[in-house]
């Protein structure tokens, strides 16, 4: 077990051991979430700021609840209601939050690298809750956690990520996490959204759905991110569904123990049919539950001291 980082900025810079530490810690927090008393005093007296410059509901709520279950105080700060609208720079806004003695700043921003930028001058811990099309580390950690929980391992599994890869920070973070833990990653979707250049990261790229799902142990479906597409990347939604949507027939051609995952929100009838979304192999709602445990683990670990463990963990 090892974790000595004050921030969680991306998965790319983590080691396999650090990823495993988050997953192991999250296992303990998941058990906390199943008790009658779901709260622990670990971050009592700490202030956590949810600094969401780009709108989000589920990630923000998950972080908010995670912070509350650790007994931290939480402030929600969204771009619409903020002074960013009045012309303040990101740096000045962040420094103002720091001046309130915030211990952890959770940031979502449409610009790649915004969390890294903040981490260079803030004393607070910075947690990336999604930066542009770059990374969404906690989503990848909760997806990896869910795979490990259901399959008992990650190494050697065939994981297919299907859909809008080009614009997806979830895909990028997942690719790093899965490859570092030894999974085989296949990317699939329309060629305009799944460029061959992703092979440089170490995964397989195919535009043939049947080939991508035949041997998959896990299929992670991504939503088409209309809000990020500045021009039409495929003719229409109907064509996407007929070529890449997971329906009952395609589901039958998959391995019987395949895991169906989706970071949400799902678009029923587009990338996934209702029968598949609601079947026993679908773990979409369990991902939400695990997301809470993983985010508790992340907030807990970035708050840890940086001293050597021998000094740190006295036996009495």
């Amino acid at each position, binding site marked *: 077990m090892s*974790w000595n980082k004050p921030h969680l900025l991306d998965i790319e810079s983590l080691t396999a051991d650090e990823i495993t530490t988050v997953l192991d810690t999250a296992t303990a927090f998941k058990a906390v979430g199943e008790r009658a*008393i779901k709260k*622990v*005093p670990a971050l009592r007296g700490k202030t956590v700021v949810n600094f969401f410059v780009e709108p989000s509901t589920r990630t923000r709520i998950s972080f908010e609840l995670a912070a509350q279950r*650790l007994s931290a105080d939480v402030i929600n700060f969204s771009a619409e209601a903020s002074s960013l609208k009045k012309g303040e720079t990101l740096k000045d806004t962040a420094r103002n939050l720091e001046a309130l003695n915030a211990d952890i700043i959770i940031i979502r921003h449409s610009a790649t690298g915004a969390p890294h930028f903040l981490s260079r001058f803030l004393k607070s811990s910075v947690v990336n809750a999604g930066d542009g099309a770059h990374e969404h580390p906690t989503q990848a950690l909760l997806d990896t956690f869910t795979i490990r929980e259901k399959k008992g391992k990650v190494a050697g599994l065939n994981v297919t990520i299907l859909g809008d890869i080009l614009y997806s920070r979830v895909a990028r973070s997942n690719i790093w996490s899965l490859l570092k833990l030894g999974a085989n990653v296949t990317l699939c979707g329309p060629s305009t959204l799944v460029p061959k250049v992703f092979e440089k990261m170490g995964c397989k790229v195919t535009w043939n759905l049947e080939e991508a799902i035949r041997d998959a142990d896990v299929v992670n479906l991504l939503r088409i991110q209309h809000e990020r597409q500045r021009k039409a990347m495929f003719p229409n939604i109907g064509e996407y569904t007929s070529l890449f949507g997971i329906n009952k027939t395609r589901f039958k051609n998959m391995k019987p123990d395949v895991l169906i995952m989706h970071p949400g929100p799902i678009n029923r009838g587009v990338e996934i049919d209702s029968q598949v979304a609601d079947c026993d192999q679908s773990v979409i709602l369990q991902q939400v539950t695990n997301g809470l445990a993983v985010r508790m683990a992340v907030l807990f670990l970035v*708050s*840890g001291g940086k*001293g050597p*463990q021998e000094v740190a963990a006295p*036996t009495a």
Partner: protein
Amino acid sequence: MPERLIIMNPAALQRTLSRMAHEIAEKNDASNDIIVVGVQRGGVHLASRLATQLEQICGHPIPTGTLDVNFYRDDLDTNYTPNVQPTQIPADITGKVVVLVDDVLFSGRTTRAAMDALKDLGRPRRIQLAVLVDRGHRELPIKADFVGKSIPTARAENVDLKLKEDQGDDTVYLERI
């Protein structure tokens, strides 16, 4: 090279645990209510050894669990890198006698955290504390009910115990650094 003194050899360790098990049985007439809980990580194997002996004395199974106290510690943001281990308690602790087991009693802060952690899992009728070594230097008003050996130590010294279960030699050492 730190100086290492043996303060308990394997035979002494076994006799000590046997004596502690008898003391636990003696103090708790209603042995059916006992739950033995080892504090991660040093207390876990000791707890299962004590429970095995208790089962022989009482003639029935004794529920045994593990407790991780990391979420309840008070030194998270000072010099401490958390290493969270599983908490597994096999039965509801409400109304039961929980015997907390740890290897070394030092500042008392781990025990304080363990009592807070137990409080969130239920309301035990009584919590008792069993430690193999009490080395002094308490920082909180905490006292063990069952003590294997009391050893006056200096702060700079270290009590080191590695059990067979952890590929150790079942010997307790005092290290002078």
